[in-house]
């Protein structure tokens, strides 16, 4: 962490003076329309740096002043930080914009040329912080993980492919991988199917919108929260005590024997998946319902005249027309499923053969001392599975938009 922070700070410091110099040179009256890309880069970095430094500095000063005058409790302290943070963001966008308009004023002899330059620069100023933060928190960790996956427990010694060799021979990794594939096959299919059914059926009834909000509601619950709810559904008490779990209550009502459902090998995987399907059906339903409504009414009427039954209209006219959307919903849930972690952690923590990759990675990284190398190797396996689906998903979604 420290190493990372210092390189970033160094980078910022290095670009500072160069960029500031570029800014000073600018106010010459006539500037060619196609400005030198290096100059523009310098200008962008300069303005970003100045704006970030000033905004951060002002925010810190204001914070220290207030903190010095009023002693604060943690709650007020936190609120103040949030408010100042948002204010600093506003100041950043406002300030960079203002600065750019000072350097290249949209008036005078060079107005047209200046506007051409500002049009090229402005997007980068506004995107700048996002690009920097994404780089810092997404791109850098990817490369760092890749690097660490070839190193030992502490991330010091280079060990070659030893971590990967261990991985492919590790029975628990195989179990996690197998379970992940199971999740991959069942959850997206289940959620999309139920979502499609819900979308099609709720469109046909008077209280459809009410039903839709009920089905959508689990989306608002965190995975951990949902797991707690479902724990009560699968809850098992010893054979002699009263069963408070919903399923065991039903089973005993019909005279069956109560079971500890989440310990039943293989089937407990399915029981965990049901939770995610329950959550994601709402998502699938909302997107697919919008797509179904987008279908031209006249094609359906044409099919009615052609003699198609409601079922044939659904499967032969409606579903093929929203196939692109179904694919996007499916893959979006697939990506989510590959990262599944919270539900398994809260329900079984990987016991009774329910381990999945994300939880297994978490185990190696944060439990029992931590193993940077092996945890990173597992993380990269997850990433390798997600990326192709993600690329396809983004392409498909773009195709849908145009």
């Amino acid at each position, binding site marked *: 962490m420290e190493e990372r922070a210092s390189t970033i700070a160094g980078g910022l410091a290095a670009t500072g003076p160069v960029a500031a110099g570029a800014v000073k040179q600018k106010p010459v009256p006539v500037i060619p329309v196609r400005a030198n890309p290096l100059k523009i880069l310098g200008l962008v970095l300069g303005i970003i740096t100045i704006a970030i430094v000033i905004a951060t500095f002002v925010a810190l000063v204001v914070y220290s002043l207030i903190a010095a005058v009023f002693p604060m409790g943690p709650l007020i302290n936190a609120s103040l930080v949030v408010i100042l943070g948002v204010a600093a963001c506003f100041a950043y966008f406002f300030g960079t914009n203002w600065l750019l308009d000072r350097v290249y004023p949209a008036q005078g002899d060079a107005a047209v040329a200046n506007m051409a330059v500002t049009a090229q620069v402005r997007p980068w100023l506004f995107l700048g912080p996002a690009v920097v933060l994404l780089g810092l928190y997404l791109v850098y960790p990817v490369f760092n993980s890749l690097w660490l996956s070839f190193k030992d427990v502490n991330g010091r010694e280079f060990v070659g492919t030893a971590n990967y060799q261990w991985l492919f021979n590790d029975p628990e990794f195989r179990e996690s991988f197998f379970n992940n594939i199971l999740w991959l096959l069942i959850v997206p299919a289940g959620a999309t199917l139920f979502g499609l059914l819900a979308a099609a059926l709720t469109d046909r009834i008077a209280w459809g919108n009410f039903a839709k909000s009920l089905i959508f509601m689990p989306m608002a619950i965190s995975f951990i929260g949902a797991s707690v709810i479902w724990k009560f559904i699968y809850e098992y008490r010893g054979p002699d005590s009263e069963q408070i779990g919903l399923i065991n209550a039903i089973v005993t009502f019909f005279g069956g024997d109560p079971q500890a459902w989440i310990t039943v090998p293989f089937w407990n995987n399915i029981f965990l998946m049901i939770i995610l399907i329950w959550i994601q059906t709402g998502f699938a339903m909302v997107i697919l319902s919008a797509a179904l409504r987008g279908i*031209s009414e*006249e*094609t359906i*009427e*044409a*099919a*009615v*005249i*052609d*003699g*198609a039954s409601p079922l*044939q209209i659904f499967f*032969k*006219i409606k579903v*093929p*027309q929203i*196939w692109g959307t179904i694919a996007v919903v499916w893959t979006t849930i697939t990506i989510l499923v590959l990262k599944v972690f919270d539900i398994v952690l809260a329900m079984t923590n990987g016991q009774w053969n329910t381990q999945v990759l994300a939880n297994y990675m978490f185990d190696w990284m944060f439990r029992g001392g931590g193993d940077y190398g092996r945890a990173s190797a597992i993380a990269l396996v997850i990433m390798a599975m997600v990326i192709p689906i993600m690329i396809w998903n983004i392409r498909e979604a773009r195709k849908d938009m145009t």
Partner: protein
Amino acid sequence: MSALQLNDVYKSYGETEVIHGIDLEIDEGEFIVFVGPSGCGKSTLLRMIAGLESITAGELQIGGERVNEMPPSQRGIAMVFQSYALYPHMTVYDNMAFGMRIAKASPEEIDRRVRSASEILQLNEYLTRLPKALSGGQRQRVAIGRAICRDPKVFLFDEPLSNLDAALRVATRIEIAKLKESMPETTMIYVTHDQVEAMTLADRIVVLSAGYLEQVGAPIDLYERPANLFVAQFIGSPAMNIVSATLAKAGKISTVRLASGNEVKVPIATDKELEGTAVSLGFRPEDMTLITGKAKALIEGPLSLVESLGEVTNLYFDLEGTPDPLVAKTPGTGDFKRGEHVKFTADPDKMHLFGADGRTLLR
């Protein structure tokens, strides 16, 4: 036996009645055009015939059989929609074959019918394409082809040309006329708000207004003998001029006095008891003559707008006491200025008289 019959047909949406009792008999092989302004109920009526809208009251017969409760697919109809309504995920061939596949026709039969329809419509080279790879005119032909494949007794068109550009519209209109010639047995019902389509295609035109049937007749009949003010003004472009007047003298030949005091003798017989009552005098822009010099004019006023179309010039002028400007069609072009005072006569033989209730006073 009539191909299609509407007996006192009504349509209501809840409390709102939109079709107010329509009687109509259509013969086999006739080309019927429903025409009327937007919201007159022509599309609703067509959709009721198709079975896409229920019939609130009255009876619809196709081929002598009551079909009110029959699903659309069994009524022996085919419909061409305004937006083509092609199935976007199917090729041209599959679009045309869909109905027959649903009906479980044999593949040979499907192939034969699709080929013959695509032959008629020159779609052979497009059979494997998706609709999105076709132009607007080609899509419309596929939609017609899909209808032909159903081999219907009654062909329904719902404003099929309104999504096409002007040149294509004319070309497709001619194609539809040819199609009708090649299918003399098939009855066609065609909805449009374009009176040129109505005049050129129809054997008989059905003029609708606000859910009422105004008049049914051959195109030239409607033009020459409109039954009421609405039809008189709806058929013909620019619309017929209507001037309020008084029936000065009734008889075999009626004398009509305009607000200006000018009188005209019209060869229309009127009842004695109507003498002195208010009537409307109608004459078409193309029956008017521009006069110059001292000759006595029937109507005159300042020019408010000149439309030079090349072969004709439309002259719009204001007449005192009439809210909308009147129009006269003069052949060729001319040197006209806005505000210029123009004088016209009109052919009394081609004038129309309408009573206070808007009905035509007959010759």
